[in-house]
């Protein structure tokens, strides 16, 4: 993306002496442009690259797996508008994020010069815009868990202009035969697990409004559906 630049040229006064016909006419005039030739900076001289094009944020994708291993999970989240009888809200931006099978989020330390490969660093984070049915779909893996929290998926709903409408979390059904039980915390097992009724975010939910519907099998993968009602 570096273009060629021209080097300024010293313009000299130029006199033509013409002895044979007796006329003397000069050409040009003393220039005032100073030479930058020979100063420290190297002139960039490369073929100019193609113009940059507008690129959406890397979050804008439906498949947020980024190569992470885990049981497949398809999440279908519908946004409803409380100001319109909870009917579908289209054009809303929905961000989701959750931890991997080991319980780790994609987020590297903020201090120091720690660096990571820029292509794979935002795993398990995604953004979609709701369609006319208020629906967004993500392909991911079933989340793992970490100490102190029940398994959950974070959701942040914005309007089309990017103004925040709702920040919430999705809880998972518990008990024998549920996806949570089948996945069994991946390699960690469930020893020390915090269940929904002890979780500091979900324990006050007595009606289960924060709990998604989850169906499926380990072999075929799971499907999660969840509705978020916002004031738009």
């Amino acid at each position: 993306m570096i273009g060629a630049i021209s080097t300024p040229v010293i313009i000299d006064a130029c006199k033509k002496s013409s002895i044979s016909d007796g006329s003397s006419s000069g050409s040009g005039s003393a220039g005032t442009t100073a030479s930058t030739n020979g100063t420290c900076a190297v002139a960039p001289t490369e073929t100019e690259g193609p113009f940059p094009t507008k690129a959406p944020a890397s979050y804008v994708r439906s498949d947020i797996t980024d190569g992470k291993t885990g049981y497949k999970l398809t999440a279908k989240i519908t946004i409803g508008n409380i100001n319109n009888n909870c009917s579908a809200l289209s054009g809303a931006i929905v961000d989701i994020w959750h931890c991997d099978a080991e319980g780790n989020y994609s987020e590297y330390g903020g201090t120091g010069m720690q660096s990571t490969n820029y292509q794979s660093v935002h795993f398990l984070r995604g953004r979609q815009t709701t369609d006319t049915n208020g629906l967004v779909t993500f392909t991911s893996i079933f989340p793992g868990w970490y100490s102190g929290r029940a398994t959950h998926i974070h959701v942040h709903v914005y309007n089309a202009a990017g103004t925040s409408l709702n920040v919430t979390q999705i809880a998972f059904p518990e008990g024998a035969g549920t996806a949570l039980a089948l996945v069994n915390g991946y390699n960690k097992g469930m020893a020390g697990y915090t269940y929904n009724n002890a979780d500091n975010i979900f324990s006050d939910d007595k009606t289960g409004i924060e709990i998604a519907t989850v169906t499926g099998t380990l072999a075929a993968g799971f499907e999660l559906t969840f509705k978020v009602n916002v004031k738009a």
Partner: protein
Amino acid sequence: MAERIITLCYRKVIDATNTNRWDKFVHEDSFAEFKMQAQFYNQEQKYNTFAELLLNVPAAEKLHFLVGGSVIGYLQQLKNIIPDILDNLGRRFLSFDNFKFELVNSDINSIEKHKIALNFFSKPLIWHDTIGNHLLVSQYHETNDEEVFTNLFQLQPFLSINSIKTIR
């Protein structure tokens, strides 16, 4: 013979005064992403600047990482070549895989105050010699060749040696 293997870091600062088209895309998109992501850490809408958020909301430190997600597409357009840093022949010569995005400061009400830094980390280089204000380096890879092709580049602001190891 001992060889010094170094990586360089180029810290490219972009603010409202950058005019280059790529720089402006990065500036504008990262500002839009900052305004979205900052809301998570500012749910009572008490703060306006990134500095205020960092001071009052410890978790806001994550915004460096989160806002950086908005520029990955632009990094891909660079095709792994670090911009701006030229060798003495006027060519870009450094490549990168690793990168770190930094929010320097921002204000949800003013894109004029939005300033970011892109830290590009070069692939390893062998540091052969220093000639005046220039370093003589070559791309580090296993080779039995006697002759290696080198680049000569000038030490300059915002470019530093990020790491060094000596191998024998």
